[in-house]
C-alpha cells in the first residue's frame, strides 16, 4: 500500500520495529535505523504518528485532527489518510496485525 486510496478509515498502523520517535515541542523527531535517517514531522504529522502509535485507527485519527486543529472533518480525514500513506511509504509505519487492533 503506497497510495492514500488504499487506506480505509478503519485501518490501524503501528511504527515499524526500527523506528523510534519523540515529540520535541510541537514537532516530532523520528529515527529510522534501517534507512538510516532521521525525520522531522510538523505538528500535524507529529500528531498523526502519535495517534497511530497509540493504536487509534485512521478514522479516529481524522476525527481527532478535526477537533484539535479546527478543520473540516472531511479535510482532516483526507489529510490523515494521505499522511499515513506517506509515513508507510517512508518506512515509518506498517499495518498493525489484526490481533493488535482487535479486528
Amino acid at each position, binding site marked *: 500500500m503506497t497510495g492514500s486510496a488504499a487506506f480505509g478509515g478503519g485501518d490501524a498502523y503501528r511504527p515499524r*520495529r*526500527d523506528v*523510534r*520517535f*519523540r515529540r*520535541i*515541542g510541537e*514537532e*516530532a*523527531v*523520528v*529515527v529510522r*535505523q534501517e*534507512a*538510516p*535517517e*532521521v*525525520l*522531522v*514531522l*510538523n505538528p*500535524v*504529522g507529529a500528531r498523526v504518528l502519535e495517534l497511530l502509535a497509540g493504536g487509534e485507527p485512521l478514522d479516529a485519527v481524522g476525527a481527532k485532527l478535526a477537533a484539535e486543529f479546527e478543520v473540516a472533518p472531511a479535510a482532516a480525514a483526507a489529510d490523515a489518510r494521505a*499522511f499515513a500513506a*506517506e509515513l508507510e511509504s*517512508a518506512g515509518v509505519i506498517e499495518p498493525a496485525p489484526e490481533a493488535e487492533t482487535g479486528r
Partner: protein
Amino acid sequence: MHDRVLLTGARAPAPFAASFLTRPDRFPDEPAGSPCGDLAADLLLPAGPYRVRGLDAAQLGRIARRFGGFCVPGDAPGAAHRFLPLGDGDRRVADDVAVEIGGHDRGGAPSRTAPPAGRPAPVRPCDPEPPVALDVLAAPPRSFRRSVTPGWHYSFDLDAGPERVRLAGWGFCALLERRAGGRWRAGLWVAPGDRRGFLGSFVNLLRVLAAYRLLDAGGALLHSAAVADRGAGTLFVGRSGAGKSTVARQALARGLGVLSDELAALTPAPGGAAVSALPFAGDLEPARRPAPPLPLARVLLLAQARRDALVPVSAAQAVAAAAACAPWINADRHRTGALLDNLGRLLGAVPAARLEFTRDGGFWPLLAASGGTISSERSGAAGALTEAEAAA
C-alpha cells in the same frame, strides 16, 4: 510534512566479528585472558572517571602519552585514590554478571548462558566503584585474524544488546556491560605482543564507552566542533566532512578557544546543558587536559553553502541533526529513545540555527551580530584552551 537527515551511525556487517576473530561465535565466552599487568590509571573524561586496570608498563606509558593530563596513573602523587593490585583470588568473572546475550541487532536469537567457568577477569572491587571500569586482558594471538590492511585499526563491528555491547576489530575484542546506576564495566582483549595496535584498539573502545556512559549520564557524545568564548560554548554539529575542523581552525585563528574539532561531550547542567572537551580529535591535536564544562549557549547545524547565512531552526530540527551525529547510540535500537529524550531535554531550550557557510570564514561576523557569545574581534579571552590552541 517532514524533513530528512541522514544518520552517521556505525552499521556493522553481519555476522558480528567474522572479519576480526577466528571464533566470533564464541565471544565473549572466548577468548580466555588474564590481565596484561597490574598497573592502573584513571582517565578523567566527562561523566567519569574511567578506571583502567590490568595494564602493563608499556600500555600505561602509551596511554599516559596519548591522553596527557586526562590520565592519572594509579601510583602517581596526587591521585584521588589508590588502585588495588590484582589478586589471584579475583581472577574470575564476578558472580553478579548478568550473562544474557539478547537483542542481537542483526537477527541473532537471544540466548542465555551460564558465566563461563575459568574465564579470567581482574575483578577486585575498588571503593568507590568508578562510573566506568575497564580491564585490559591478554588474549592468545590466535584469537584474532590478521589485518588485511596493516596499520589500519579504526574499523570495527559493534553489536548492541539491552545490557551488553560487543565490539571486535583488528587485534581486539571488547565487552561492555551496563551495571546499576548507569555504571559500565568493560573488558578489552588484546594480543600481548601487539604494542603498536594496542593504542588504536584502546582509543576505539574508549570512544564507544564514552558514548554509552554519557547517554546514561543524561548526555550525549556528538560529532561536533565545540568553540569557547566568554565562558560559554557553541556547538557546531555536523557529520564527517561537514566542516568541523575548518570551523575549529578559524576559531583558533580568531583567538577563540576550541574544545573539539570532532567529538564533544554534551551533559546536563544546572539550568540547561554543558559542553566538555574529550581527548579525541579530527584534524587538530586532541585536547591534552580536562577542563571544566562550559554552559552551552548555542547549537549551530553545519551546512556548506555558496553564501553565509544563519537560519533559525526549531528544537526538533536541532535534536534531529544532533541525533544524526550521535555515533553508535543512534544505531542502537535499545537506546535511540533515550538519546532522543536526552537531546530533547538538553537542546530544547538552547538557541539553534543552521549555519550556511562558505569556507572563507565570512560567517563569523554573522555569529557576532546575532547576539551569541562569539566575539566579532579577536578576543584572546578563550574560555577553555587546548594545547593546539596554545601552540597556535
